């Protein structure tokens, strides 16, 4: 699978990362290298092998349904760039 510079731009946009044309070109080289590696691995016959979703063969531990957290809003909002009436402020969201 080959990647184009515009693919890189699109992926960067989805992740809200700003990349210049030069950076996009450099990233394209690196990503293409990774894709090349994956292509090589595709040659391995994986019939009958269950896809792995985690590197360890253990299962999820569950937590009892109890409220253990208390209000730490003041501490969290002390490091926020902008707050008002308890809300975090962000540039206007346009729908």
């Amino acid at each position, binding site marked *: 699978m080959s990647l184009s510079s515009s693919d890189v731009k699109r992926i960067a946009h989805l992740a809200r990362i700003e990349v210049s044309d030069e950076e996009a070109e450099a990233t394209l080289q690196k990503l293409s290298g990774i894709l090349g590696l994956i292509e090589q691995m595709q040659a391995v016959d994986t019939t009958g092998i269950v896809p792995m979703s985690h590197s360890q063969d253990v*299962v*999820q531990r569950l937590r009892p*349904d109890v409220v253990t957290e208390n209000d730490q809003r003041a501490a969290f909002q002390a490091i926020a760039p902008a707050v008002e009436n308890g809300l975090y402020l962000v540039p*206007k969201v346009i729908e």
Partner: protein
Amino acid sequence: MQWEVVIGLETHTQLQTRSKIFSGSSIAFGAEPNTQASAVDIALPGVLPVLNAEAVQCAIKFGLAVNAEIAPRSVFARKNYFYPDLPKGYQISQYELPVVGKGSLTVQVGDQEKTIRITRAHLEEDAGKSVHGASAGMSGIDLNRAGTPLLEIVTEPDMRSAAEAVAYAKKLHELVQWIGICDGNMQEGSFRCDVNVSVRPKGSDKLGTRREIKNLNSFRFMQQAIEYETRWQIETLEDGGTIQQATVLFNPDTGETRAMRSKEEANDYRYFPDPDLLPLQITLEDIAKVKAVMPELPGDMKERFEREYSLSAYDASGLTSSRGIADYFTAVVAQGAEPKMAANWVMGSVAAKLNEQDQDISASPVSPLQLAGLLKRIADNTISNKIAREVFDAMWAGEGDADSIIEKKGLKQVTDSGAIEAIIDEVLAANAAMVEEFRAGKEKAFNALVGQAMKASKGKANPAQVNEVLRRKLGA
């Protein structure tokens, strides 16, 4: 051309847990902004999600209730998208391996039964809320809702009309409350539906391009939105246009749907298994434990009512249409009322009053015990059915128990045969013409005479006795 509408639903039900799905924050509604948002919920670096056991129980309960496969192993995935009320930049959801697999729900549409296939149901976290107009040029973010546990229930595109879609949504709404996994509060957003609508020429087996109506939080709006959207799509196609896949919003003020954003770009969620969470394992023992505490399901209860109480399918279905009505009916019967009579009253007078006042059965001013007390007096002939309705109205108005109302208003049925004979003698004397008609063979005249006798007794004479005495006196 004849068109057919094809509808599928995705419903987000908020699970009735105390804490969030991946953190120990409270999910109580209506708290001050961001006071129920912990380090995990606001996605500070270095935090780890830990799954809430109760949320898993809820998912198993739902799976059992719709006869679905419950996955022995399911996987949490990251759904990546950028939005300010999603602090991690991804939502933890399930993708390839959801906790609940294929199931079904049978609904009543008019007098038809229809089975809707459920594709899957998966656990996920809710996002926060954006508050617009907080400050000029800014949006406010409240993360109290971020991390609230949801079960998203997805159907196959099996519905063919707005009525079917609404019937399914209502049935699902009752079911999740019945099994106690969701409070069903639509105003607070505990039960929200996204509806996928497409149209195709009737007879075609190819699906048309769909548009998704987001966040419908009332059944009435759902009906209106689907009807409008269907008309719009048909008109667009008939005018030679094409349908673009899109997300649309319904505007209750105009009754119209409007495209929100083109889906092509936003739809690239780049799902992948969340490395912060291990696979969720559900054993047969886990399922057996949940089964043991499951309430009797509405379908099973309906069948039992038909079998044990000889109720009609219609009555049994009505009595199990919500947990509240079923509990009420069961309580009336437990107080010794005859089941068929109890069914008639709960489905009749009680339902009519509640309907009139647009209230839920939990708001009924007449308790099951009080209703049973009234039915006892019908059964033992103290009052007739007709008088019972009068007593019921008084009970509804808060005038006390049946016995005290009957006593106070002197409504006790007259069963003294001497008194009844006296009334009938008077009636016969005063209505010689009717008597003649009856003797001439008009059966109708007999009913008129019964009516006169009942009227003369102010409705208190025992109707069966009146009939009997009257026939005897007329020599019929």
